[in-house]
């Protein structure tokens, strides 16, 4: 019964999904194969979200189910997880702003789209973004902010990236409650995503993926 697991997960059938995982674990299945199938299920969830068939609750709930799968599989897991193909993306909510719901959704969508997402959390100062850029070599940064106060923090972050000599190697997207094209211009970012789906399209475009 290939795909049974990914299908149940994509349909958000928690009990059924976890029963399948338990059964496979008991039968001695390869934990990596289970995770791979779960990843396929999550991809379907992401696709349905992009197609407006699923909404934020469906994303969050699928994440909760996946968390449980991970907990079940983890003890049997040797070595690291699967390599991400989409490249690295650094995401964080800028200094002075502690909102995380929007950022978390973008992280989720990038993750299920195959990106290696480095989530910096909230209230992230500009120099931390710069340090992480240097350390990881990530070509894409996403700055999140809910308040109008975040406009200045975003601008400062872009300026710091510039001052560190990394601006021409880095694509910067911004997003959040009150972001418009004017804010893109003001902050010196490259573009903004109206929602998580647009954020993923930007990342895919910049990473040279179709």
């Amino acid at each position: 019964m290939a795909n049974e697991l990914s299908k149940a997960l994509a349909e958000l059938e928690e009990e059924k999904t976890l029963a399948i995982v338990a059964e496979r674990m008991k039968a001695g299945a390869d934990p990596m194969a289970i995770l791979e199938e779960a990843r396929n299920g999550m991809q379907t969830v992401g696709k349905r979200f992009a197609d407006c068939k699923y909404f934020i609750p469906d994303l969050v709930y699928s994440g909760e189910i996946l968390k449980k799968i991970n907990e079940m599989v983890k003890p049997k897991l040797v070595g690291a997880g699967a390599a991400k193909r989409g490249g690295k993306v650094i995401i964080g909510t800028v200094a002075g702003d502690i909102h995380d719901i929007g950022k978390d959704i973008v992280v989720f969508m990038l993750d299920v789209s195959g990106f290696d997402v480095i989530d910096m959390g909230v209230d992230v100062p500009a120099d931390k973004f710069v340090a992480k850029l240097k350390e990881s070599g990530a070509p894409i940064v996403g700055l999140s902010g809910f308040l109008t106060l975040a406009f200045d923090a975003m601008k400062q972050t872009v300026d710091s990236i510039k001052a560190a000599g990394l601006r021409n190697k880095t694509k910067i997207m911004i997003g959040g409650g009150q972001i418009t094209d004017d804010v893109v211009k003001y902050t010196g970012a490259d573009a903004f995503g109206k929602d998580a789906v647009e954020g993923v399209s930007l990342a895919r475009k910049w990473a040279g993926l179709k």
Partner: protein
Amino acid sequence: MERKWEAMTSAEKQENLFARWISPAGAKFASPQAEADYKARTTRIKDAVQMKKLPDRVPVFTLPSFFPIYHAGMTPRDAMYDYEKCMAAFKKFVLEFEPDGNLGAAVPGPGRFFDIVDYKLYSWPGHGVSPNASYQAIEGEYMKADEYDALIEDPSNYFMHTYLPRVFGALDGWPMLPVLTGILEMYGVAFNFIPFGLPPVQASFQKLFEAGAEVLKYAGAIGAYGAEIMGLGYPTIVAGYTKAPFDVLGDTLRGTRGLIVDMYRQPQKLLKAMDVVTPIMIRMGVGAAISANNPFVFIPLHKGADGFLSDEQYKKFYWPTFRQVLMGLIKEGVVPLVAAEGGYNTRLDIVKDLPKGTTLWLIDQSDIIKAKKNLGQVACLAGNVPSAMLDLGTSQEITDYCKKIIDACGKGGGFILSNGSFFDEAKAENVKAMVAAAKQYGGYK
């Protein structure tokens, strides 16, 4: 003789509340002109909301968050800890921009009170966020997933013993308090009072006395400000607030993640809890309006915005109890001032199921011109100058935008020009341009 409140229809109650707002008993106006201005502004707003006759022109609101504070050269920290300074900033703001409706000066809140009670649900300037930043909510599962039965069975008891001690550090003695409804007869009654002799409970109450004294000081400043600004001719448009039951559960009790998971794992308990919360939210709004002699009760909408729920989820979990709250308020003559924060485009066809001229909707990022064609047929819309434009745009852009929405939404009344979401940073000339646009282009002749 005035008719008894219970005998009035809801329309009569609304008229009565408007009359008490427009002609406030005991108000002291600074001059006959100020009194005339106050009456003109409140009447203009009333006519726009009731949609029965055209106002003299499109009214204009300025609804800031911390803008008056920044504009006065203060930090939000200053405003939360020095009430006089805070009131001075809001007074300067109202007198300088001259809106028809303003929100009062309660946004910053009393910082020292939050310190005393050790409020954990928010960060505020200088306490978890920079002194120059706005307060921000810290979501969490302050109510656990397995506590629905306790909430449903006795919400007050649940708040007292479980929820409040989690969000206020100063109330950590309260889980020891007796169950008050167990105090019934002479036999055994005394034992119920044992907790009040215990040091942790006494320490909690000690802090509460201190907190109460601080809030009295703050309320004195707010009250004096409200009376003064009204005396100068400027109406405050909000008597108090209440919430949609789904947001009560999501914002402060279960948090977004907890609430979402409950929709799948225990939907019946979530629905039942919202039923229990509904009459409480109605009472809260009605009480505020009647005691303030002001029909408007503010309802900020959060977790039902575009994308947050599917249509079916909105219809199943959000709208039924939200509508009950609205109808419960409307029945008592209260006018819900509903802030449809974020985008509400996909909900407009659902929420338009309301009696005409009984609600006021603040539109944020929804397409207000489209909204006029559905919800706007039964409800007055206010909005929707974007915060980003107020901050980064030019005053010409503001004027053009205002003119466009006045032309499209002002026709036939039922429209108030306003910013769409509470704003912090903005250019003063842009706020001025918004107010000027209503006066220049909003006339009905």
